[in-house]
């Protein structure tokens, strides 16, 4: 397994969705590859940060407007 192979498996690896033997081969590669370890760590962190930044909640006043809007149309 080379770095490009590892990269192609990351989306499943971080989901814990790889077959055990493939995950083991990937981890064997990681043990000896500093760039791939750095990539995985920053990939995971990016996922977590992206989720927090992309999560925008509906403001309360908008929720009230929406409720009013829909109930008027329902009536």
């Amino acid at each position, binding site marked *: 397994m080379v770095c490009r192979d590892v990269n192609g498996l990351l989306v499943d690896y971080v989901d814990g969705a790889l077959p055990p033997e493939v995950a083991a081969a990937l981890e064997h590669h990681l043990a000896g590859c500093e760039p791939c370890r750095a990539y995985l760590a*920053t990939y995971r962190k990016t996922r977590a940060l*992206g989720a927090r930044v*992309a999560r*925008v*909640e509906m403001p309360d006043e908008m929720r009230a407007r*929406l409720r009013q809007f*829909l109930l008027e149309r329902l*009536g």
Partner: protein
Amino acid sequence: MMSDEHLLLKEAAGGDASALEALMSRYGSRVYRLAHGITRNSADAEEIVQDVFLQMVRKGGAFEGRAALGSWIYRVTTNVALNKRRGKRREVETSLEECLPTWEADGHRSGPRAFLVADWSGRPDAELLSGEARRILEEAIDRLPEHYRAVLVLKDVEELTNEDVAASIGDSVSAVKTRLHRARMALRELLTRRLGPQT
């Protein structure tokens, strides 16, 4: 047998205000988060939430209940949001290609070693979620094509399975995984250009 949610939808479609309120309470936040995630604009997201709930009231009676209601609502939301974005695509939504890793013939990632081993993941969240780092991340998310943002929000914010994301946007699991991976790689690359290597 009709599920609780299916019943609520039928009742809302039949003019029952309490059923509509229950659906708004259950799905309003999720619809808004997805709509905002795709459009990155609160006024557009508000209009989309209105449209989606109006569709639920007007067309909900035709919902056959073969798919989960949540997937159906996400799918309607995605369609409404993408339609709204049509024609509004901004220049910043450029190709992802220049943000994806490149490879040597032997399968190693290409680039200066200091950049390849840059690991900023141990920095405190307070630092990464404020100031310059947050601005970079916000801009990087803005630069993603909206189809990619839809997948990113459904998977990484709403934490759906790949299969449920695929059902929600009407695409294949493999397309979902490809978009998700490319979106994360692009965000990671832009963050790494700003945050690492340490000087």
